[in-house]
């Protein structure tokens, strides 16, 4: 955070505090001994030891059937399933809030805007089913009117009812768009959804990046420029960072057991993954699950270590020591890898968590008195070759009051963006929005950013990404339990990996694995 501040990255006081925490806190540095000398000076070593011992004594000891680490959608779902089966559960959450990468932020008048996972769509029956069970209604994402396409300083509008869907029908890219999307869809059908590394061409596909493949299979420079505009919001990454095999798996995962995944279902709003929103925001689902868990979620309790014991596991956090027969680790791989395991995890699992970073994605939100873009017949969806905002959506409440636009800033744009001053960032975003929707966009009543890469307990978003070589070498470690430790989180899902639906699926699957054993 200090470094961020130096670069002008200031926390938003209205925002959830954990997003403003430094990646490594001063306390952790102290504990790690990085400033051991200074510590020793401030506090004599015996006294420090005694203080440590006192602290240890104060830890609350609990014994449960299952300890769940992470109160995101996956962890909460797992805990809910286990509790419904009358298992004793305790959920340890590092943040001061629940929800993980699902988060609402207030925008005034009791309304909220989703700062994290937002949408659901056809074939995402697990998140939709869960919402229905909890009484959280859905409503269609506002999609009446034209989409905006902005390229090289020119704005054009188009309807997403055309053959390209949400992708812009730019004549200069159409041949490549049609060919590439068709080929990717066809290739994705050859990817086993449950084991992409077993695909016949896995070795070939996991030896190249998406960018390499696009360069070999497209001719139009503008099309090649459009591809990052798609990968930044979808993965928070550039095409050069993504394994082709991982990309194909992601497309294959954009479906369910009855409907093959397609790029269109992933990317589109109409009949696609952005088709629905949740009334009062997606975080409402997490709130309701947590309410049903009846105090079993412990906030501000990061799990520091997991020890395997004769009876199962012993999970140590600053405030709690939990003994359980099974543990479900429901945090992103990069965070799961930061937990100390004793004995250590198998090499493949360790390597997998080490090599799967989160994408770099920020969400920027501008609130207006009303959704003025609708007057112009625009639906708030924009695809742009110009950054920092490459994609926007209308995030207004169902009644359109207030009007809310949010945009994704990802990949290289996200990294650049994070290095700018707050004023420069806001100006750049509003300039983008004005280019897409008119100058009225320059005057929001409220503006805020959600910096997921800067969030200590997320380290990025929306999903862990795989560079070439990772899936082939360590893919099987994604879900394979290690003794009594089971893995959940959207990255472990087969279908809708990276989405809320995938998180729910993974939570259910991990709970079942555990219930088999208890």
């Amino acid at each position: 955070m200090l470094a961020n501040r130096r670069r002008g990255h200031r926390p938003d006081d209205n925002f959830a505090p954990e997003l403003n925490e430094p990646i490594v806190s001063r306390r952790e540095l102290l504990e790690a001994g990085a400033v051991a000398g200074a510590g020793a000076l401030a506090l004599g070593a015996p006294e420090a030891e005694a203080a440590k011992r006192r602290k240890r004594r104060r830890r609350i000891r609990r014994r449960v059937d299952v300890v769940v680490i992470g109160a995101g959608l996956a962890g909460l779902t797992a805990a809910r399933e286990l509790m419904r089966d009358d298992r004793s559960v305790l959920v340890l959450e590092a943040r001061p809030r629940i929800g993980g990468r699902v988060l609402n932020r207030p925008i005034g008048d009791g309304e909220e805007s989703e700062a994290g996972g937002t949408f659901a769509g056809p074939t995402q029956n697990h998140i939709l089913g869960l919402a229905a069970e909890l009484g959280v209604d859905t409503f269609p994402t506002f999609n009446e009117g034209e989409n905006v396409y902005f390229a090289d300083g020119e704005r054009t509008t188009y309807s997403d009812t055309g053959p390209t869907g949400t992708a812009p029908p730019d004549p200069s890219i159409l041949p490549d768009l049609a060919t590439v999307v068709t080929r990717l869809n066809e290739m994705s059908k050859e990817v086993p959804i449950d084991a992409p590394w077993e695909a016949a061409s896995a070795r070939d596909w996991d030896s190249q990046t998406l960018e390499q493949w696009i360069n070999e299979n497209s001719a139009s420079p503008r099309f090649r420029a459009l591809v990052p505009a798609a990968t930044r919001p979808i993965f928070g990454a550039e095409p050069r960072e993504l394994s082709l095999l991982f990309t194909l798996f992601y497309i294959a995962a954009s479906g369910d057991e009855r409907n093959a995944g397609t790029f269109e279902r992933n990317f589109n709003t109409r009949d696609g993954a952005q088709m629905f929103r949740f009334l009062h925001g997606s975080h409402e689902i997490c709130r309701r699950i947590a309410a049903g868990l009846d105090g079993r979620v412990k906030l501000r309790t990061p799990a520091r270590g997991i020890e395997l014991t004769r009876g199962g596991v012993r999970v140590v956090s600053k405030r709690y020591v939990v003994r359980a027969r099974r543990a479900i680790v429901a945090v992103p791989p990069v965070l799961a890898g930061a937990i100390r395991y004793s004995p250590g995890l198998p090499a493949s699992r360790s390597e997998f968590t080490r090599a799967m970073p989160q994408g770099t994605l920020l969400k920027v939100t501008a609130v207006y008195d009303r959704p003025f873009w609708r007057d112009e017949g625009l639906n708030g969806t924009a695809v742009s070759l110009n950054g920092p905002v490459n994609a926007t959506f209308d995030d207004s409440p169902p009644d359109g009051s207030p009007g809310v636009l949010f945009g994704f800033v990802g990949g290289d744009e996200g990294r650049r963006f994070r290095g700018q001053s707050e004023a420069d960032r806001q100006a750049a975003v509003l300039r983008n929005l004005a280019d897409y929707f008119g100058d009225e966009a320059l005057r929001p009543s409220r503006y805020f950013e959600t910096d997921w890469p800067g969030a200590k307990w997320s380290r990025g978003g929306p999903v862990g990404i795989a560079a070439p070589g990772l899936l082939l070498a360590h893919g099987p470690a994604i879900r394979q339990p290690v003794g009594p430790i089971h893995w959940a989180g959207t990255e472990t899902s087969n279908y809708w990996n990276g989405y809320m639906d995938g998180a729910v699926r993974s939570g259910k699957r991990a709970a079942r694995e555990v219930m088999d054993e208890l």
Partner: protein
Amino acid sequence: MRRPALIALALLASLLAMAPAADAQRARFDTRLLAKVPAPGFPAMAYVHPNGRIYAGTYVNPGGDSLRSRVLEYDQDGTLLRSWTVPGQDLSKDHGVQAATSDAQGRLVLLDRTPSRALLLDTDTGSFREYSTFANLAPCPPLEARTDCSPTLEDRDPMANYAVWGPDGSLYVSDFLQGVVWRVPPGGGAALGWLADRRLDGGEFGTTGLALAADQRTLLIAQGSSAGLGALNPSSGKIYAVEIRPDGSPGELRQLWESRPADLPDGFAIARSGRLYVPLAGAANQIAVLAPDGSELERFPSSPGDGGNGSPVPFDTPSSARFLGTRLIVANQSFTGNRDNQALLDVEVGEAGLPELIPGLDREAPALTRVRLSRKRVRPGRRVRVRFRVSEPATLSFRVERRTRRGWRETTSFTRRRGAGRGSAAFTTRGMRRGRHRVSVRAEDAGNNRSARVTRRLRVMRRLRG
């Protein structure tokens, strides 16, 4: 998986299989797409495990591929849960795997094409173990049928394709190409020829199904064709019955049913009523229903050919059927390689299947004892805990009913799985009306319909004022 956990899961699964209200309203032969099977595809069989989940192996791709076979695990709604890749296959030859049955420890029994072997898959650890191997038999001399040779016209490789447990723990395994039924001794080891018969020579379309009848001493054997000329009408399939004699030797093979030409009956299932549901993987693309005496009752769909069943996926080489409650789970192999049709289909038939014999898996009803309520009289809004002791892992159904003028009326119900020993479950009396209630607890093995039930009385009193 530990056995207690397995049994508990089995009970839950069976209960769930019986319970869904939606299924109760489904019309006979209402067919739904359960799940498409991802690459490498070609599901030849879907096994319904006592834990209630469905396991499908990916089988031989007639067009050839170099993909290792996998076993996919689905829940009853068709959600893909996990998968395992089969080790040690010879990818240069035809390769594929079928999940054929499971053992008392819950491990899946897999039949592998190349090498020809049976594997045990522990789904908890993902570990595989070889259970048996099937020998490549030389052809028997003409008109001879011995178990140490293959009574077929041509020399063919072994191809184990269906397996069923005998009462003594032997595993009987059919061979698609070699005209024999194998017997694997209890505990595993090399398979020995048990039954050899010229009528099991179907050329390229041989033995295609094996099941143990309700008497647990008769094996039913499906034959895709008699192309080896061991029986009349070589293009029609048959179902035979053979007794397992008390000394373990086979009795006389007798024909129960003969299909129409080119029907290719495959992977049939037996209902509790004794009726047989026989997928026809040939040109018919139907499911034939046979009476216990072998007479054909009906076919679904009624017209052969296109396999239209009302679901988005027609029957396309339907290769096996297994009961899940009153539903048949049909594996659609799509031999021609239509990836969109390689799927598991869910066909409501309105009757339950014959429980599978798995030696060692305790099929007796669990004993339910020491059932106590934490309170016999309770005010609304309080919790009542039910304590009990159950002899083995079981699915426990709790039902609270209120006495009304018209009899007992359900107030609340829920199910829980519990391991052997003491256990408890609680419910709240919030919203309950005052009066006499009863709490019934049922420890259930719904797959066998054996259950123990205990009822206790509960009186809900008037709410305290203030």
